[in-house]
């Protein structure tokens, strides 16, 4: 079993509790022009920032960083987030001056490298998803959802009759219903069957000519493949609806299933999950959207095209929904994902296979220890809950906090909502068998502690620099700036 230790972690105040007026950590370029006169009535006081020396800045952020746990620290099986290893070579590529200092409005002839990368990326993602058109613009998964749903909206508008509703399964990520509303549709919530996925009958029952379509996450957030996906798509299509495929969980099925082959009309990918780009602290992401032929005219502009051997940005697309980003999307993120795809090639399939292998290995190894609501072969993640521990008054949260003491990042807790007290574990393929064995052993040890010494869990974490934080009072009297 993995043993962790406590050790020295340095304290560090807030930025403005440090510093002194007149210090700086930035070189002002030499002044080579005269000061120009100014309309004083427009001049402000300037922000009251602290002044710090370079050493102070460096130590501040180095110390802060040591309070964090990342994938480079250890196993980070946060379900639904695909916290796989972020290759270091991708950072090297993304920091090349030619890319980093490129202005997004440079003439096309002077930015062929960037455009080529984007163009090829569109092609690769089209192949991976089995779709006909791709936009790289959306800034994240949720942004992709919105872009996709707006295209569905535009499609129905173009077909002469707007619809009012969208079907949302109970396993859906919170972004799905939120997106639906943002795009002017009312969500129609439907439940999954006792096996954890959608029954065609359920959809049949609600799908009608006022329904714009359905949003399905597949594999769904229980980590299960929607076995009736094709059938459901047929039902939706038969009523003139469209199928939105939430591809955030694509890490399970690259090279195995192409959503475009099984009935998806529109989908997004999370490059920052499936394609290994770092999104420290919450982002940045990139959520490309891929569509079938019928929806290609509605793709946002600009699109990257190849004409006569020259890559160009095209924005004269009359049916396009328009723009969702000022420029070409999260270029630097896309670049890292491109580097990843070029490094993996068709072996992306192996990554998916091993991601699924890892998840099933955890599922099988822990299923006596933690309660498993849906005991079926899973895809990239598995969802347990705390039913076995209820008798000891130990919760999912308690076990997660104890896991911190053991040196692991906990899984996702209390999501998906369909499982009470959910423990959603997504190991990803970059964890080795040894890593998984240690993680499994830790959970087993904790489950044992839950029986013999539940206080240990209620009191956890104890090894971390901070103990549990008071979230209630934080929300009651919000203090959002210092």
């Amino acid at each position, binding site marked *: 079993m993995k043993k962790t230790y406590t050790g020295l972690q340095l304290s560090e105040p807030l930025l403005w509790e440090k510093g002194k007026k007149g210090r700086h950590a930035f070189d002002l370029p030499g002044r080579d022009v005269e000061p120009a006169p100014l309309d004083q009535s427009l001049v402000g006081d300037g922000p009251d920032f602290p002044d710090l020396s370079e050493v102070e800045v460096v130590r501040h952020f180095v110390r802060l960083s040591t309070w964090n746990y990342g994938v480079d620290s250890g196993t980070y099986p946060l379900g639904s987030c695909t916290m796989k290893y972020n290759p270091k070579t991708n950072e090297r590529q993304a920091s090349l001056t030619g890319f980093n200092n490129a202005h*997004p409005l440079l003439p096309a002839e002077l930015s062929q490298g960037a455009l080529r990368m984007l163009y090829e990326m569109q092609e690769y993602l089209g192949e991976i998803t089995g779709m006909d058109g791709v936009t790289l613009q959306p800034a994240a998964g949720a942004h992709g959802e919105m872009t996709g749903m707006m295209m569905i909206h535009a499609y129905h508008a173009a077909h002469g009759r707007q619809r009012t509703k969208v079907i949302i399964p109970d396993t859906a990520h919170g972004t799905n219903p939120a997106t639906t509303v943002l795009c002017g549709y009312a969500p129609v919530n439907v439940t999954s069957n006792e096996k954890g996925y959608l029954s065609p009958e359920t959809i049949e029952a609600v799908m009608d000519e006022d329904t714009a379509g359905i949003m399905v996450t597949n594999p769904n957030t229980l980590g299960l493949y929607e076995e009736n996906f094709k059938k459901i798509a047929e039902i939706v299509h038969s009523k003139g609806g469209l199928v939105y495929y939430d591809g955030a969980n694509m890490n399970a099925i690259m090279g195995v299933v192409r959503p475009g082959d099984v009935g998806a009309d529109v989908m997004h990918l999370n490059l920052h999950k499936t394609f*290994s780009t770092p999104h420290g602290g919450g982002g940045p992401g990139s959520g490309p959207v891929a569509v079938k032929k019928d929806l290609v005219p509605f793709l946002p502009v600009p699109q990257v095209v190849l004409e006569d051997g020259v890559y160009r940005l095209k924005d004269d697309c009359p049916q396009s929904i328009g723009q969702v980003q000022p420029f070409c999307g999260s270029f630097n993120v896309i670049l890292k994902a491109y580097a990843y795809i070029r490094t993996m090639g068709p072996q992306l399939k192996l990554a998916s296979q091993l991601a699924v292998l890892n998840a099933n290995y955890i599922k099988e190894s822990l299923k006596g220890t933690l309660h498993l609501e849906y005991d079926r072969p899973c895809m990239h993640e598995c969802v347990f809950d705390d039913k076995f521990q209820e008798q000891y008054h130990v919760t999912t949260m308690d076990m997660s906090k104890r896991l911190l003491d053991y040196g692991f990042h906990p899984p996702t807790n209390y999501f998906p909502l369909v499982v009470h007290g959910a423990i959603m574990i997504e190991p990803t393929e970059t964890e080795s068998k040894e890593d998984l064995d240690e993680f499994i052993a830790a959970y087993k040890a904790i489950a044992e502690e839950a029986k013999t010494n539940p206080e240990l869990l209620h009191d956890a974490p104890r090894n971390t620099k901070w103990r549990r934080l008071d979230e209630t009072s934080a929300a009651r009297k919000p203090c959002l700036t210092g």
Partner: protein
Amino acid sequence: MRYLPHTPEDIEAMLQVVGAKSLDDLFATIPPDSRLKRDLDLPQPLTEWELNQLMDEMAASMASSPKYKVFLGAGSYNHFIPSTVPFLMGRSEFVTAYTPYQPEVSQGTLQYIYEFQTLVSKLLGIDVVTASHYNGGTALAESLLIACRSKKKKVAAVSSLVNPMYRRILKTYFESTGIDVVELPYLPDGRTDLSALDGLADVGAVAVQSPNFFGCLEDLQGFADKSHEKGAFLIASFTEALAFGLFKSPGSQGADFVAGEGQSLGVPQSYGGPSLGLLGSTEKLVRNLPGRLIGKTVDLDGQRGFVMTLATREQHIRREKASSNICSNQSLCSLAAVIYMASVGGTGIRELAKLNYDKAEYLKGQLKKAGFKIPFETQTFNEFVVEFPEGFDKTYQKLLDKKIVAGLPLVKYYPEMKNHYLMCVTETLTKADMDDLLGEIKS
């Protein structure tokens, strides 16, 4: 494959535990007719060394500064970034973490976001700022939506001098909302026509950018007063946050929401992304804000710490009732920004902003001297419009060959602005660079 740790023996042993015969067998729950029968048609894997070569070549093809002298702004600004920024941002513990769901092992992230919220709120002169939005355009779109919804009104009035790329985003976003976006025309002095508001009814929000797309400073206070009079919120937008090192902040001029772009603050241009949407409001409106907020609290031992807070606005709690669908944000960009702001400091940001201003004024003055027309007399920051003589587009092409990008032709965005160019000068361009440009233009 160096990212995949599984040996054949590992796979064998694990399959046995799982009870599957092969890796393919793991996908047995997927109907066979749904499965791909061939390999993905992607280029074969490159080694790290082949990848380096490919990327070096592609990067070398870009007309990037400092190789090129680029007088472009228009929403993306070339500023010097101290080497400490990428160095500190590159710390594994920052880069490879995610949303700070477990605050006990995420205080690094949480404290820097809290510091980010604080410094940005000081810069923008507004009470509260979120942990980030995708970019200035989406921040503006979402704030307009929220403003109109909370006012329960059907019209959003938007200055025609808001960045055209942002206005296109608004158009897209508002398509399915039932809210009308009305554009406010601009005046001959390069500012938005405040009086155009008079004719409008049912206005929930007014959006004005300052400095605006022509680089001119708007009378935000005037817009605030008039908006409030009409029962609407004023949303102040911006693309060049550095301006507030020198000029009055939008918050101090009565804006209810601020929504703009923070790329200037230490985020590389990177062909336009990822960027850093800044979004804030007065304290009253905080529960309407979309996206993450970090708040101060204490732990069980009374130790100061930070947590995600007011999450009941967010999609993962509220689902269809959330104020936005945003989930992942631009956290690493906000890290860049907070390191940058800490490095520049209060004293530095003012000097830096002044230098940007002085340089742009130098070029403006020299262009004027050389007989070119500066159509707008209004105060600008580091961008301004110049009108060149008919046929300048040929000179522009010639300058590209000399590795000078002489501003942005405006006609694409404002058809009436033929031969007008938007010029931007930051601290990265020297007097010599400007004199070179002037020399070339005059000859």
